[in-house]
């Protein structure tokens, strides 16, 4: 479990805004191991999204390198980047960004377009993924007939379609009420435990961030030295910290002693 999935070395990003140089990121070093569930927290403007874009091949750093699944993606030419986005990374957005003219299952199939999978295989995989996020009943529904939480679940299923090395979620709960937001972060946690999916979540919500396994803090483009342990339960820790009984991942309260988890 100690294999590195994602690693950044001295990551710098400098924007030019009207002749003025803005340093969005400076000297960011992150190491993400396989099976990690990491949250990156920071106030708005701290460079969270910039960092995530860099990790997901949407943007190029000014200095430094990003090694994703053993590949230095900062050296990959522009034309080859789409393959990395397709097979190595799964994006989850704040605004879900489903295609409004496609239904849930077609949205999940979308990243599999242009892969070697046949139509039936795509459909089968999409069905599995929708089941995984608990939307088996909603396959044929389009965006406008899905609640915000359901839309984000479809988006998560879509991110998983090509079995990527890492899921990058940019404020995945930002457009959701707190209850639905917690459901989503719990779903991500469940995927991390059940499927071993490596997940990086960027958020400014400390409650959401605390649900991850590791919490990193970003301020003014710099990664703070302090790192906190989140409340994310690994599989072996699926017991109530109060009474020691076995609990289910989705439980908010311990069914035995009634304490909040």
């Amino acid at each position, binding site marked *: 479990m100690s294999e590195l999935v994602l690693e950044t070395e001295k990551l710098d990003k400098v924007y030019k805004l009207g002749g003025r140089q803005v340093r969005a990121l400076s000297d960011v070093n992150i190491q993400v191991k396989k099976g990690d569930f990491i949250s990156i927290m920071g106030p708005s403007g701290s460079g969270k999204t910039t960092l995530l874009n860099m990790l997901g091949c949407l943007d190029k750093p000014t200095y430094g390198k990003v090694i994703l699944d053993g590949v230095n993606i900062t050296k990959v030419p522009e034309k080859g980047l789409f393959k990395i*986005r397709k097979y190595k990374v799964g994006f989850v957005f704040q605004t879900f960004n489903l295609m409004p003219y496609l239904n849930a299952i077609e949205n999940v199939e979308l990243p599999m377009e242009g892969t070697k999978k046949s139509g039936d295989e795509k459909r089968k995989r999409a069905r599995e993924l929708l089941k995984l996020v608990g939307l088996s009943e909603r396959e044929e529904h389009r965006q406008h007939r899905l609640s915000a939480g359901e839309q984000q679940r479809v988006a998560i299923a879509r991110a998983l379609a090509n079995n990527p090395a890492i899921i990058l979620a940019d404020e995945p709960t930002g457009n959701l009420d707190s209850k639905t937001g917690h459901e989503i972060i719990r779903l991500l946690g469940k995927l991390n435990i059940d499927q071993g999916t490596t997940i990086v979540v960027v958020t400014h919500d400390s409650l959401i961030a605390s649900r991850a396994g590791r919490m990193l803090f970003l301020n003014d483009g710099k990664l703070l030295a302090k790192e906190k342990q989140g409340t994310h339960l690994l599989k072996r820790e699926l017991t109530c910290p109060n009474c020691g009984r076995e609990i289910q991942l989705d439980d908010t309260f311990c069914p035995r002693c009634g304490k909040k988890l």
Partner: protein
Amino acid sequence: MAIMISIPAGIMANQEATQNLTENYNNTISAMEEQINTTATLIECSAASTQFNRTDFPGSPGFPSGSAQPFRFEREEVYINETIGDEIATIEGVKDVVPFIEVSSEETTSETMNSPRGSFTMSRPLYTITGVCLNSTVIEDYSILPTNITSGNPLSEGDSGVVLMSLNLSEYYGVVVGDEVEIYGESFTVVGIYNSAAQGFTGARTLYMNITDAQTVTDNIGNVSRFDVYAENSTSTLITKIATVIEAAYPELSVTTYEDRLANLENTQEMYTQTLNNAESTLSQTQTVATQEILIAVAATSLIIFFVMLYTVRERTKEIGVLKAIGFSNWNVMSQFMLEGTLISLMAGVVGIVIGSIGAPILSSYLLPHISLFGGSQGRFQSDFGSVNPGIASAVVATNVLDPQIILLAFGVAVLLGALGSLYPAWRAARTSPMEALRYE
């Protein structure tokens, strides 16, 4: 799109009409030429006033005075006495006199022609009965019977109660050699069927029979329509001399010599050439205008596609960003938008073809009225070339039919314009940076 389809359709139909006209004219002229050249010694003496009379139908308000009024041509039958032939035969220098009788059929046919100013109907006899002198030497020497026999036999000396029928008439009646046909209440056997060389020529609908049969059955005993007088040689002094004698003795006869016919032919040719030139210049003018209009339409269409696609790409910037973020390549994005533009254009093409096939005949009849007027102007020289008319009528009708080639072409153009118009917008979509596109609201 509709304009794009309808204009070429109209032009093509009218080109066809002009071609048909040219073909008709050429056939007619060459048939006339042939006849004139082989009969240099012939002096035609026919009953002077045998001609078609035009009857305009009164009481048709809304029609401007002119050729578009409904009218009918009727042949006024004027006959001369058979015995005049024997007298002419005694004139010095005359070798032979061959009598003919020409009687219109009882049945008539009417043809309706369409023009932008309304339709008009022309009614005329279905065919002409020509009674010929069935003397074997006459038949051989002067080739008075058609030679292009397609089935059965030609008429020969002593034949009675039989007819030689033109191919188009036999098709009209559905008869073959050996069948009976009824003419003026009497039954005749079809002994042979011939094919007229000139499609538009009056000879196309003629039924030949023994002259005595024709005289008896049409109640014209002792009457003939014309004499073909043959001189001993073709020197112009002899022919002029004979013609002068005949004209002086029988003022009721209209006499035409080889030279008269030659002059006639030249006049006719000139008239046709003029008509054709007019038609062609009208057509080429219209084509020039139409070409300009098509170019404008094409340019407008691709510009519309261009702007629509540019707008679409702008509207859907975020969508493009998402597609690229989940792993769509530049080429995937570009082909998606190209396909969209082409599909829009193709759908417009389908709508255009529907509108075009409804609108093209109407539009082209207004844009190109001159061609349809041929039917009307034809009346001026119809007494010679009455049967050219069906050809023109069918050519005018052809304007109403949309060529499948045009439809295919229109589809091709639609696809091409769609692809062309969406090329740049699609390229721009493909080039969008996913990060910036995702930020776009």
